[in-house]
């Protein structure tokens, strides 16, 4: 069953544990620059927003990739980069509207949220329990839509225009 990572913004306190655990899981060291998730903080409002790949239903990254190196994982539904196929042209990075992909600073590789094979570390280790993985069944789609209703211009892309 396809899955998505959903965040409850009310719960996020901006501790950046997710960034560190993400880096640790993928890179074996704690360096936020190597994380697949970035927390944007609005100090004055006391509001924090973790930004990460939304595993769009019709992803532009996949569409622009000339090497056909980006594909959807049939198990989790995450968009993955086949690093062997990748030719490093970075078109995916430039095409993604939400900055969901980046180039690893030293390893010369495209990095992005891969949903940790369906069991994301951020979900497990967030002290506030702000993250949640939901299956993309009818209820999941609805919750996802609610979650991202606010930025309607990107809505179609992420949900594939389907309810």
């Amino acid at each position, binding site marked *: 069953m396809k899955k998505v990572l959903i965040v409850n*913004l009310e719960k996020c306190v901006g501790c950046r544990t997710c960034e560190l655990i993400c880096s640790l899981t993928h890179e074996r060291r704690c360096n936020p620059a190597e994380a697949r998730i*970035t927390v*944007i903080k*609005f100090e004055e*409002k006391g*509001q924090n*927003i973790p*930004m990460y790949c939304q595993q769009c239903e019709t992803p*532009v990254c996949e*569409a*622009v990739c*000339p*090497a*056909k*190196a980006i594909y959807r994982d049939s198990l989790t539904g995450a968009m993955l980069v*086949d690093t*062997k*196929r*990748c*030719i*490093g*042209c*970075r*078109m995916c*990075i*430039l*095409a*993604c*509207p*939400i*900055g969901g*992909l*980046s180039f690893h600073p030293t390893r*010369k590789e495209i990095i992005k949220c891969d949903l940790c094979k369906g069991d994301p570390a951020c979900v497990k280790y967030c002290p506030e329990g702000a993250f949640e993985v939901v299956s993309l069944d009818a209820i999941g789609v609805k919750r996802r839509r609610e979650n991202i209703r*606010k*930025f309607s*211009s*990107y809505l179609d*892309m992420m949900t594939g225009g389907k309810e």
Partner: protein
Amino acid sequence: MLKIVIDGKEAEVEEGLSVLELAEKIGVKIPTLCYHPAVGAYGACRVCIVEVIEKGLSKLTTSCTCPVESGIEVKTNSEKVKKTRKLIVEMLLARCPDAKIIQDLAKQLGVEKTRAPQKNENCILCGLCVRICREIIAVDAVGFANRGNKRKVTTPFEIQSDVCLGCGACAFVCPTGAIKIEDVEDKRKIDMWHTELGKVKCERCGRYFSPVPLLEQIKKKGLREMSDFLGLCPDCRRLVLANKLMGREE
């Protein structure tokens, strides 16, 4: 499914694979320099050479170009293969003595020094840059020129190509690091291609983040209404989006 023997072990594989792909699948390591999954087999570097025995006849062939056929036996490291591969690496080491990947390969195969005439090139003519640019990026900014001993990779007339996007895929796939990309503030320089391209400045933070033609190319793909974020660097895209989520325009 096909049954074959590789290095003494039996293996069963689906049809349509090359010996190299099969070896990788089952964890047998065969060195190669000119193979890349995105463009497939080319057969130029000859390093992935293996011994294939079919109907009692043994021949040396490059594993990348050899289709797996039922009943064949593959030896990836027989004496004959080792001898041949060593001499080929000796040739490459003379051509590109400074390339780390060649040095490593030489060390791995026990080649201590080369007896072949030294050339001091950086490029081994694997053609990955040419093939990626032609077949994948589809702009064909660089190509092979001349032939024989004078063969080289270059831009037409050895001046800046008017179609290069500056995407840097050529440098990314280059096994020897012969193609170097230098990003200096608002310019991207690729010396190998006699090329210098302007970069796009992020509308928000002012950082130069993409060569101009590359971003134009993405615009041309016209996948969706992109104009409102394409002028932003990926970091600012996250910020701007977060702001929108907060319900406010910056």
